[in-house]
């Protein structure tokens, strides 16, 4: 029984944490938040140099050929640092889509530049408010020509290429690959409540595009792609949740009221313990999610949904109660509490909301029972 990362993996975590403490201190996050760029290009370049974007890409395509434990570890650290870079779009989603569905030519063309970080990719799926389903998709691809509007596209303002979802049938979905720097693609930068991550609305008007792989993808395979991303996202959310808890604990030990540290009041200490419990539950579920992802287990759908729901709940709670613990100061622009509050909500809305994953979780439970029977 070994349900823990290896020594090498734990060393990677230390290294990643140290790197981000240097390269992505709160001042860097704040610079993006206050500035008019959607991401920190310098940090992105350094992350590429570290090989993080290459983590799970096979060596044959210029990657490091490490696995998903390593990627989960990096995701956690990026979450702790609230890193203002397009990592989740490019790595968890677009790169994964290429590896899962791309043909050899596509992989050979794009994976090496994705691995190096030279190319930023994104994943364009939503087409407006509410849930996006196979039958709600209006974007079309025919004869390598893409038409439709995607909004919002996370990190869409800085991406070079996009994996775009297009209508196919009620049970399949067509993925395509499109270079965004062409005349028939128009981008409108969008702000979200997290000013430190750029978004865009992207209109495709007969844009040149190519099918990802050879044909439509079953809805089930498409959901598997989202499951994989959900595990990594859960680790990112978990990192954020733990950092918010640490920040709240530090403040509660140091801030005095009524002649004693506020952390000695049960109203505060039990609040913090409650955050800890949610984080601990999320962490254990994230471990299982990482195992299911790395080992290619059949229980991935259940493990991913469980990790995702737990991390959504833990990170939203930790971010909001961190502010509450800080009192008035927590509500100022000057304090960093806002980073976690903004990012936690942003990440909870990516890839489908809490209700979506609760539903998927029970579907997975039903399938597991059906298989066992």
């Amino acid at each position, binding site marked *: 029984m070994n349900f823990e990362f290896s020594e090498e993996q734990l060393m990677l975590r230390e290294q990643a944490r140290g790197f981000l403490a240097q390269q992505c201190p709160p001042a860097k996050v704040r610079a993006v938040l206050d500035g008019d760029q959607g991401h920190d290009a310098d940090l992105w370049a350094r992350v590429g140099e570290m090989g993080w974007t290459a983590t799970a890409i096979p060596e044959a395509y210029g990657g490091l050929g490490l696995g998903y434990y390593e990627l989960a570890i990096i995701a956690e650290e990026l979450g702790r640092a609230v890193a203002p870079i397009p990592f989740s779009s490019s790595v968890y989603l677009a790169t994964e889509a290429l590896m899962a569905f791309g043909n050899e030519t596509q992989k050979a063309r794009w994976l090496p530049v994705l691995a190096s970080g030279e190319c930023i990719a994104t994943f364009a799926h939503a087409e407006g408010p*509410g849930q996006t389903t196979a039958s709600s998709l209006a974007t079309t691809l025919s004869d390598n020509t893409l038409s439709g509007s995607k909004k919002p596209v*996370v990190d869409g303002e800085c991406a070079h290429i996009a994996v775009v979802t297009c209508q196919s049938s009620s049970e399949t979905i067509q993925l395509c690959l499109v270079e965004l720097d062409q005349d028939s693609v128009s981008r409108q930068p969008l702000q*979200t409540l*997290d000013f430190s991550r750029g978004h865009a609305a992207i209109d495709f008007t007969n844009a040149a595009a190519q099918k990802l792989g050879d044909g439509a993808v079953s809805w089930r395979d498409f959901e598997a792609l989202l499951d994989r991303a959900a595990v990594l996202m859960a680790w990112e959310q978990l990192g954020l949740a733990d950092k918010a808890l640490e920040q709240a604990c530090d403040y509660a030990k140091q801030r005095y*009221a009524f002649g004693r540290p506020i952390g000695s*009041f049960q109203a505060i200490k039990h609040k913090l313990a409650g955050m800890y419990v949610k984080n601990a539950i999320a962490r254990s579920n994230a471990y299982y999610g990482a195992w299911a992802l790395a080992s290619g287990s059949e229980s991935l759908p259940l493990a991913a949904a469980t990790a995702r729901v737990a991390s959504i709940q833990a990170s939203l709670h930790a971010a909001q109660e961190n502010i*509450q613990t800080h009192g*008035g100061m927590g509500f*100022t622009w*000057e304090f960093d509490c806002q980073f976690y509050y903004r990012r936690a909500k942003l990440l909870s809305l990516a890839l489908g909301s809490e209700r979506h994953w609760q539903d998927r979780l029970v579907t997975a439970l039903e399938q597991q029972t059906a298989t066992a029977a």
Partner: protein
Amino acid sequence: MDFNDTPEEAAFRTEAARWLADNQLTAQDTEGLSRLAIAKLWQKRKYDGGWACIGWDEQYGGRGATPIQRVIWGQEEEKYNVPSRFFVIGQGMIAPTIMAWSSPECCDRFLPKLASGEEIWCQLFSEPASGSDLAALRTKAEPEGDEWVINGQKIWTSGAHYSDYGMIVTRTDPTVAKHKGLTAFLVDMKAPGVETRPIKQLTGDSDFNEVYFTDVRVPDGFRLGDVGQGWQVALTTLMNERLAIGGGGSGADVPLAMKIAREVTINDQPAIKDSAVRAKIANFHVLEAGLKYNGYRALSALSRGDLPGPENSIGKLVGAPKLQDIASFCMDLLEEHGALWSDDFESLTGMAQRSYMGAPGLRIAGGTDEIMTNIIAERVLGLPQDPRADKGIPFNEVPTGN
């Protein structure tokens, strides 16, 4: 039970409504004016017509109205889009304190101009090191002749930048216990040595200020209560803060959630058909309706001539976290689109986001959730106080962690 006015109440309401209809601000009146200028114009018009601060004595510009008449007036005035927030602190919280604790000269000097809207006031209580522990404030006032010299810093001061006067609580004796060494004053916000700096909030707005006092001189005649009585004076202000029965304000609520849930889909059906969505909306409605009818019960008490009790403090304690939760829920219904920032607060996402970003402040300002819960436990349920580490200790010997 009867939701209708008594005959007396109905007569008063008719009179108020008629005056409002006759005297409302026209587009012409307000053209080109700032919100503050409009507010001052309207306040002056009410004052001239005898409808300003109607609960006050006539000598200060009021008409000695009953609490329920004040509520009726508020309900009628609310039907017109008039800005009022600039006067809430001065008229609702500081004026009663002036009436209770200052000299007749100060009353005559300040109250009519408060009623007429000519002068705007702010409240200078909180400090960086005294938030929930309000009495731990450190701003010093030292006597010099028949003046006092104030040095220190206040924070979370709403409206400091447009206020003419402020009510300040200071420490005049750090060698006695925390609550005993305080003294309250009226202070001229335009006096030399007063410096105001806006605080940028999470929302990007700046509703509050830091105010720095450097050798600011205040005449002894501006003192409220005796030297050392500042905590009792402050309690008068705070009590009036809690008694203020206001409209809940706008924000994400059940109608907004219903509206979004009818527009977006879940599994290709309107989200409002989804049972999980319904269960959440139902729970939010329970809270919203409960607070609304709680307010009706408080009004009934006023109508009977009773004062609403401390049980009214559940409003903010329930309302602020509910606002945070329902705003988050509305954004979830919109899925990724819910994150898109909108400055149009009338839009579906804009209203949800403004509420989501503003709610953390609401859970803190005017007493954190934790302080409000303590108040309910101690004052409503009669549970014993926490042990007090600072009790009976000279203020300058209380542990501060520094």
